[in-house]
Structure formats: C-alpha cells, structure tokens
C-alpha cells in the first residue's frame, strides 16, 4: 500500500504543470539545500576544535549541550516558516479497502523524511565521530547522536501540531512566535533556565544511556498526539468539509471613488479578508512593521546605511512580496469566469496594483516613528516606498504572468495547508536585494543622498510610465491566457 502512496506522490509532483514550469526554481532550491548541507558539514567538523580552543578548561560536549536549547528553538521557528506540512489528498482513499491507520502512519512517516530532519545530521555525525576520536567512548558518542535524531524528530512532530493548529485558528503565526519568544524570555531572564535543564538532561543521558527512554517516550507522545489529531480529520463531515460560517456582508462603498477598478478592488478586499491564506498576508504586515526594531536600536548597525534600504524595502514592500507573488493565482478558482466576463485585463491588474500601492503607502506612514532612530531612516524609507511603488510592483505583476500554480482558497480537503514554503520567500530575494545593490553603488561613489536620489528617480520613472508599463504587462498576460486557464483548471 505504501508503495502505491509513494507512487501517487511521485506522479502528482512530476505531472503537475507547476513542476514543468519552474525547473529553474527547483534548481535554485537544490543549490540552497546543497549550500546548507555544506555549511552544516563544515560546522560539524570544525565545532569541536573551536570549542576546545575557546573554552580550554571545559568539556566541549558539555558546552555544546548548553547551547542546544537555542538551536532547537531556532529549528522550530525555521520549520514553522519553511517546512511544508505533509499533504495528501485522502478523500478518494477513504472508501477504498485501506486501513485508516495506514493512511495516518504514512502521512506522519512522510514528514519524518523531510530535508529539515536530515540537515542536522550533517553536523551531528561529524561531531559524533569527533567525539569517538577524542576518546569519549563509542557508546557516549552514539548515544549522543541518537539523542540528537530523537530531538530533531520531536521538533518535527511538535511543529506539525503547532502548524496545523494555527492553520485552523485564525491566528496564523502568532502562536509559534509567542511560544518561542516566551520560552526564550523565560530562559533569558533565568526564570526557568531551559538551556541548563536541557543540557543537564542530555549530559545525564550521556552518562546513563538507559535514560534515553525518556526522550523516546516524548517522541512517542508527540507522534501519538499528531495521530489523534489527524484521525479526527478523516471523516467527511469533520474537517474534510469546511465549516459553514455566517457570512458578513459589507458594501465597501468607499471604494467607489476609485472608479472603474472599484468592483475589482471590492473583490480583492473580500478575498483578503474572507480567506485564510490571503488573510495571513495581512497579519504578516505586523511582522514587517516590527522588522526595523531588529536593526535600528542596535548601535552596531548605525553606520551601515545600506541596511536601511533593506529594512525600508522590506517594511514598505512586505505586502507586495507576500500578496503580489500570487497574482493572479488568488483568482485561479474562478479564473474562467473572469476571462469570459466583461472584464478588461487592465482594470483587473490595476486593482491589484492599487492595492499594493496602498499597502506600501500605509506601511510607510506607520513606519514614520522610526525617525526616532535618525532622520536618515525616514528618508530611506520614503525612497524605498517610491521604489516599491514604481519598480517592485511592476516586476511582481510581470512575474505573475508566469504563474501556473492554482491556489485552492476553499481548502476543503484535509491535510491541505498550502502554507508558506521556502519558495515563497525565495521569490522575494531579488525584490529585496536589487534595490540594496542599486543604492550601494552611488552611495559608495558619491554619498548617501546620491543613493537615496537614485532609488527615488528609478521609482518615479516607473510611476511616470505607469500606462506604458501596464500595457506591456497586460500584453504579457494576454499571451499566456490559455496556458493559465488550463493550469488553474488542474488540482496541482
């Protein structure tokens, strides 16, 4: 049976029109994966000598164990944003003679072979071998390595619990941020010193391998919790079917002033507010706004003015990156309607454009308090906003004409959390880093004002040529119309 499941997934992946269109992106992902593997390998090899040199009096293993708490916390956060939940279309399988147990174990087992679980091994195994060479005893080294694998799996399943729970509630990524920062704070202010507790625990297991049964039991428990959660979802009247919510209606009359694009604007606003997935791109605005606080209060960054550009583009452009890259896939469910209705592509795209511009302006206004950290920041944020409005919006609209992946807004099937994957952030890279590079050259050669002026001029040029650019983009969309209709018709 498992053989069939794997076969299905193989076919689903390679037969999707998405795969065929984005080989380039897949190659890029492979390179990133390779990069991380090499980094971890290097870390695993060099960590022992480094620790030995820096802390000659203490035992490197004990020191490392003391830091593991932070690693686990970082791992959990990273997974939440990058790792996709195991997805499987179970509905067709329910009435076939397959034991439900098998489906569940398969889905959970599948998550265990994720890249994120193998990555730590690249550091853990060399470090473990180092332990053997350094005469810690083979048992200690092996126990330690096994322990790391168990912890990785615990985090894996813990993440699935958190992620699937938060996908069901409306809170998006708030729970995991609260949990992680809560744990971090408790530890940091030494109210409960988790890092010491964890280190003591690991050291104890190293000394007395029988204790490994405790983490093993914890793994069993998180696995079982997942199993129970998923089991409830295997009924058609459970969560396979979306809950019926009472509709709230709003007429959004204020959009009237936007003239021809008003009906689309209303549609987009409803799209954003009434569907889980696009709604998360509203919540993410809060993160975007806070982003500057990571950098600006720290005097270390005071002289790195190019960094302001990065933050500025991020703050005023986070909605553009998050929402924009799925244009027109947001409307994929009813794309045929839009294409056969009395609709001009220009108005449709202009509505999306206006939405992104509005977000950028609002985010700039909200970020004005950063002026507290220096007027230069405000100036750069303003330039970044102009650049976002005049350059990045067009780039992302243009990129949209290559969009071939359907988004299922209704999310009826269980296990279907088309959430944030690593690819989504990858797309944002050029939007974030190109302006920094553009700023950098005149900034180094002439000065700060020249850098700012360059960004503003580029953005303003884009705004001036709005009609021309839009005509070009519309032509692009028209050319890929049939391909898009066809791709959006498929269920991934």
């Amino acid at each position, binding site marked *: 049976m498992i053989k069939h499941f794997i076969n299905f997934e193989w076919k689903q992946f390679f037969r999707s029109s998405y795969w065929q269109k984005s080989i380039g992106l897949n190659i890029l992902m492979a390179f990133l994966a390779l990069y991380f593997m090499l980094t971890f390998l290097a870390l695993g090899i060099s960590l022992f000598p480094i620790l030995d040199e820096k802390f000659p009096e203490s035992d490197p293993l004990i020191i490392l164990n003391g830091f593991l708490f932070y690693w686990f916390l970082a791992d959990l956060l990273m997974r939440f944003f990058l790792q996709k939940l195991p997805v499987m279309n179970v509905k067709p399988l329910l009435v076939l003679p397959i034991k439900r147990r098998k489906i569940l174990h398969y889905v959970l087992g599948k998550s265990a072979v994720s890249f994120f679980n193998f990555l730590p091994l690249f550091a853990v195994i060399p470090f473990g071998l180092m332990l053997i060479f350094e005469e810690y005893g083979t048992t200690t080294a092996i126990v330690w390595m096994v322990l790391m694998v168990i912890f990785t799996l615990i985090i894996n399943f813990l993440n699935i619990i958190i992620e699937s729970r938060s996908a069901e509630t409306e809170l998006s990524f708030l729970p995991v941020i609260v949990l992680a920062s809560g744990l971090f704070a408790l530890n940091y202010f030494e109210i409960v010193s988790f890092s010491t507790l964890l280190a003591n625990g690991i050291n104890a297991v190293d000394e007395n391998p029988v204790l490994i049964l405790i983490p093993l039991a914890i793994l069993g428990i998180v696995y079982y919790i997942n199993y129970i959660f998923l089991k409830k979802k295997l009924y058609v009247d459970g969560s396979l079917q*979306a809950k*019926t*919510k*009472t*509709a*709230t*209606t709003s007429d959004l009359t204020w959009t009237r002033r936007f003239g021809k694009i*008003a*009906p689309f604007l*209303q*549609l987009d606003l*409803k*799209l954003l507010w*009434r*569907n889980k997935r696009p709604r998360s791109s509203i919540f993410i605005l809060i993160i975007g706004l806070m982003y500057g606080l990571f950098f600006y209060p720290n005097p270390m960054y005071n002289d790195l003015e190019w960094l302001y550009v990065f933050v500025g583009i991020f703050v005023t452009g986070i909605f553009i990156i998050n929402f924009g890259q799925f244009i027109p896939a947001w409307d994929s*469910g*009813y*794309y*045929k*309607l839009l*294409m*056969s*209705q*009395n*609709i*001009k592509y220009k108005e449709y795209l202009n509505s999306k454009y206006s939405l992104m511009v509005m977000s950028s302006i609002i985010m700039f206004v909200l970020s004005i308090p950063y002026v507290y950290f220096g007027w230069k920041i405000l100036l750069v944020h303003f330039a970044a906003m102009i650049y976002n409005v005049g350059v990045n919006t067009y780039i992302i609209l243009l990129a949209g004409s290559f969009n071939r992946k359907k988004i299922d*807004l*209704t999310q009826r099937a269980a296990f279907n959390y088309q959430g944030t994957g690593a690819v989504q952030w990858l797309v944002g890279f050029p939007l974030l880093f190109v302006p920094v590079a553009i700023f950098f050259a005149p900034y180094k050669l002439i000065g700060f004002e020249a850098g700012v002026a360059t960004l503003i001029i580029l953005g303003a040029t884009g705004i001036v040529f709005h009609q021309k650019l839009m005509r070009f983009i519309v032509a692009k969309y028209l050319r890929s119309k*049939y391909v898009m*209709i*066809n791709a959006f*018709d498929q269920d991934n």
Partner: protein
Amino acid sequence: MIKVAELSKKYGGVAVLNIPSLEIPKGQAFGLVGNNGAGKTTFFNLILDLINPTSGNVINNEIQVNKSEDWKPFTSAFMDESFLIGYLTPEEYFYFIGELRGMNKADIDIFLGQFEEIFNDEILSRKKYLRDLSKGNQKKVGIVSALIGKPEVIVLDEPFANLDPTTQIRLKKLLKDLTVTSNATILISSHDLGHVTEVCDRIVVLEKGEIVRDQKTSAETLQELETYFSA
C-alpha cells in the same frame, strides 16, 4: 449570430473537435447533445475563447473571439462551479456580475425578483457564502447570473445536471419563456434528451468531435434521438 468556420481542436495530434462550418442564427435556442468526450464543452470553451483553436475560428456577432474581446459585453456563460467566486455571498456575486454588465444594485434587486420561484428561499439573504451552498444551489446562482444584463448570447453547459426535479421543471419553463420574450441566442448542452428537446428549436448531435446530426426540433425528435443513442 455565431458563425463557425473550419474550427478544429487537437490535443497531441488527436482531434477532439472538428466543425467545418456551423451557423447559429440570432434568437435561436440551440441544443447540443452527445456522449462524454464528444466535444460539447470543448466547443463552448472555444466560443468563449477559453481555449485556443488549432485551426479555424468562431465569429460572434461579426467579432472573431480570439482576436478581440469586444464580444464579452453581450455574451454570458455558466460552464461549471469554477465560474463562481466562493467567498462571496450570492447577492454580492450578483452585484459584482451586474456591475460588470452595467447594472447597479437597485437594477439587480429588481432583476432577482423574477427568480423567487427558482431560488425557493434557499439563496438570497441566507448569510452564506457561495462555497457553502449545495451543488444544486450553486448551479442556480450560476445560471441566473448568466442572465444578468440582457446578454444576446447565453452559453450554458449542462444546466439541468445536479438540479432537483422541481427546479429542473422551473428552469425549463424559464428558458422557454426566455426564447419567446427575448431575442437572445441560447446555447445549451445536455445529457438529458427530454429537457433539451423541450427547450431548444434545434438539436445538434456531436460524436467524437464531429457533427453527425443537425435538425429542427419537432414532435418526433425525442424519439429519433433516443433511437440514435441506443444504437
């Protein structure tokens, strides 16, 4: 109203539709029947420019559909649920379509009044999103929305499927009235020979992408079609 010339659609060298010539005059109720895979939906998709023809073209009221978008203002369609916007309430959906077709809210409210019978109190002011309606009710919304704004060409793919018996009968009456009261050209595909012969003045039978029968509806048509399809 609609002229088809040398129209063909091939997928990987296999022809799924091949219509050398077909003309549908203004005001005709045109019925399309055929077994699964006969090319009915493909034909409608070509009329609506949702797929690109391999050869030939469709001309809708002097406008070649894959060259200009000017046929859109007077053409409307309901093909399947993917024509609905799941996160809107039925009212909002009607208003949205109305707006695209130059009708304001008040116009739409009056327009919807005539469908009370079909809606049967299950559609309007139920505070439900379209995605939460049953398949049959979704279909009702789709069909009614295709009638908004006095379109001159109405394309309906399988309008009777998924509907309960009462609604099927009411819809039949509605479409028949429409052919009499308006001068709209109506294109309907259906697997139900009874319904389609009752509503349409002309029946075209497709088989493997080719037109094999083309006849005016008469009292014997249903009998003839049944004989044809049972052969």
